[in-house]
């Protein structure tokens, strides 16, 4: 029993030292955190959002490495040379070539469940050249509440309509059945006029 006493005294001293060092570390960390928070408080509205969610969100980022450009697909592309005989079976009849008069034709309004869909078909040189949307399901919610979720590195903006000309449009996949129906009406018009 007595044997342990000197060691215990030594341990006590070490414990105090440890506590002191830990306290110093904790204090430094808090000071740093406060400092960071104050600094970023000046830098834009994003930082005004609660910090805790920023920390958790940041952890949620999976560090995924993808090598996309050289990920070859194993299967061969079906040989579709210009000389290959095309199947005689008529593919979508409405889209067969050369049977339309040039012009712009508007299809019927078709209910796509989430809202009305209506398309306009543009025929050039007897072929369907473009399909444009006249009507499209809209979200009716008009709330403009700005969310305050903090996202590290990310910026945020209210969406705004742009007027610039574009070559292509990216958007969610279209309501295929309603789309097809409205287009069919437009193409029927193109055929009979």
């Amino acid at each position, binding site marked *: 029993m007595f044997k342990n006493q000197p060691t215990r005294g030594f341990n006590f001293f070490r414990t105090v030292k440890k506590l002191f060092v830990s306290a110093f570390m904790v204090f430094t960390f808090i000071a740093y955190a406060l400092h960071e928070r104050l600094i970023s408080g000046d830098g834009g509205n994003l930082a005004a959002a609660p910090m805790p969610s920023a920390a958790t969100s940041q952890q949620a980022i999976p560090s995924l*490495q993808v090598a996309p450009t050289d990920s070859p697909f194993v299967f061969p592309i079906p040989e*579709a040379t210009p000389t290959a005989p095309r199947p005689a079976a008529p593919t979508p009849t409405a889209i067969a070539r050369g049977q339309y008069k040039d012009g712009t034709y508007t299809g019927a309004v078709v209910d796509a469940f989430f809202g009305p869909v209506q398309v306009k078909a543009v025929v050039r040189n007897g072929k369907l050249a473009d399909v444009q*949307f006249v009507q499209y399901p809209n979200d009716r919610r008009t709330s403009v509440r700005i969310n305050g979720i903090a996202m590290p590195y990310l910026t945020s903006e209210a969406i*705004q*309509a742009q007027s610039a000309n574009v070559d292509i*449009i*990216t958007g969610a*996949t279209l309501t295929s059945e309603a789309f097809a129906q409205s*287009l069919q009406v437009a193409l029927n018009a193109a055929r009979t006029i």
Partner: protein
Amino acid sequence: MKQTRVLMGMPVSLEVVDAWATEELFDAVFSYFESVDEKFSTYKDQSEISRVNRHEITLEQSSEDMKTVFALAEQTRQETNGYFDIMHDGICDPSGIVKGRAIYHAAEILRQKGCENFYVEAGGDIEAVGKNSLNQNWRVGVRNPFNSNEIVKVLHLSNCGAATSGTYIRGQHIYNPKNHGQPITGIVSLTVIGPNIYDADRFATAAFAMGREGILFIEGLEGFEGYMIDRHRQATLTSGFARYTSHD
């Protein structure tokens, strides 16, 4: 030269700027899309995927192409922490892989034929290669999810893919595999730009299923940028997104 046809239940558009582009070239690409649809359409009773789903053939008995798609789907499931899953209620729907891959291969066909300036677009997903007819990067508009006649962002893209996942155009067509029956709310549109359309599309699909965390997933992917729009019309951009919105 530009053409649009309706294939795989959606409009498919090609524009080739290279002056020598022929009608046959367009036919080759469109018939490739048709062949993909014949095999992978879950809407077609006689497609191979429908036969797999009816257990008429096993995966082992199916074509190499089918096996590859399943392998790619499994790889994607693992890379996205399970958020990408082609199984829904016991039915296998690999369209989340098939569409992006079809656009990717269509672009490959055009490259092999020597095309240098073109885009392939199917249902709002795009592979943009080279320059447009004005010798600029391709200008890609991000459709306003609240108003189809508007765009809310203009991207300047060359040699990359852009895909958008959204909730309501086909209804809730993206499922959250970890929360069956739970609709994905809060965000309405997520556009992802990546080095090619195959990767952009599959990661857009998975990230959309993650809800608000999805944009953080894209932020963590090297070589990918994202633009998320929530139901309050607020957009969130990844840190490198601005490089695609500045003029070339």
